[in-house]
């Protein structure tokens, strides 16, 4: 009985699979708009100063996506960060520039989960994996893969997120929760930075995929409502 309970417990936390791929992504671009010029006011200068430092740190961080044909798990690899890095006040911003949290995508259930700390709580935010994408004919070679451009359909977005995916690896997964396309997401151009594939490793060794289960379960829409409310009413309470 004890063994069964142990087995069920382990089964809830881990999925062991063979032929798992490990993709590593890096931030590679910073736009010049974060330069600190005399035309900016003090607030903007302070903001850009923090962002520049955070971008420098973000460039040294890796984002690891582990996936097979059924599911994926991805997060920033903090094992590379030194204690000194973690001690910096802008370490948290660097994480935010890439993508905070642990992302889990499941193809069969059309689920995209992210476990992250926000507003002093740990959340488990659920959304659909297959989002409304517009796929373009534009092609590029990235890290040796032929990639196609896709953009999320969004009428009121000022800066639209651009994603490059490759049908060469036909899985609907990608870093930072981006997925639901007919191929692995290789590059994400988000706002002022680009997160792009740097290495891909295919392993026949069983790889543990630790699925996030802790946190307050909440839908993406509800979470967005909470953040909006926190912004309006929670001044000084973070």
């Amino acid at each position, binding site marked *: 009985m004890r063994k069964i309970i142990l087995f069920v417990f382990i089964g809830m936390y881990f999925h062991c699979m063979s032929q798992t791929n490990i993709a590593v992504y890096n931030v590679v671009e910073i736009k010049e*708009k*974060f330069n600190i010029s005399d035309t900016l006011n003090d*607030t*903007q200068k*302070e*903001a*850009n100063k*923090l*962002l520049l430092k*955070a971008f420098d740190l973000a460039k040294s961080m890796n984002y690891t996506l582990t996936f097979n044909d059924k599911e994926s798990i991805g997060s920033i690899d903090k094992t590379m960060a030194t204690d000194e890095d973690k001690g910096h*006040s*802008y370490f*948290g*911003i660097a*994480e*935010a*520039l890439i993508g*905070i949290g642990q992302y889990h995508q499941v193809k069969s259930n059309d689920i995209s989960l992210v476990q*992250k700390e*926000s*507003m002093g709580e740990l959340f488990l935010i659920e959304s659909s994996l297959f989002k409304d994408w517009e796929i373009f004919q534009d092609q590029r070679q990235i890290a040796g893969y032929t990639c196609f451009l896709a953009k999320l359909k969004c009428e009121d977005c*000022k*800066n639209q997120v651009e994603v490059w995916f490759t049908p060469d690896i036909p899985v609907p997964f990608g870093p930072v929760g981006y997925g639901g396309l007919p191929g692995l997401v290789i590059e994400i151009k*988000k*706002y*002022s930075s680009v997160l792009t594939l740097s290495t891909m490793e295919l392993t026949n060794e069983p790889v543990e995929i630790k699925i996030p289960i802790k946190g307050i379960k909440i839908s993406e829409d509800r979470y*967005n409502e909470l*953040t*909006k409310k*926190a*912004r309006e009413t929670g*001044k*000084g309470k*973070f």
Partner: protein
Amino acid sequence: MKKYLIVFMFFLSAFSYANNLAIKSIEDKESPMCWAVADAAESSCCGLVGCDFALWERVYLACNRQS
């Protein structure tokens, strides 16, 4: 003796007043300043205030830690 006492009391109250002003200035400045910095950072990154709460929150926390 009375004069010394008055002078002493004057400096004491002046010091206390200046100290209170400095504390008030920090209290007034800290959160709203960081709130504005977080708004500016978010706006710089994704185009408008309200587009990336995670970034906004991290900038706000980092700013307060630095203050």
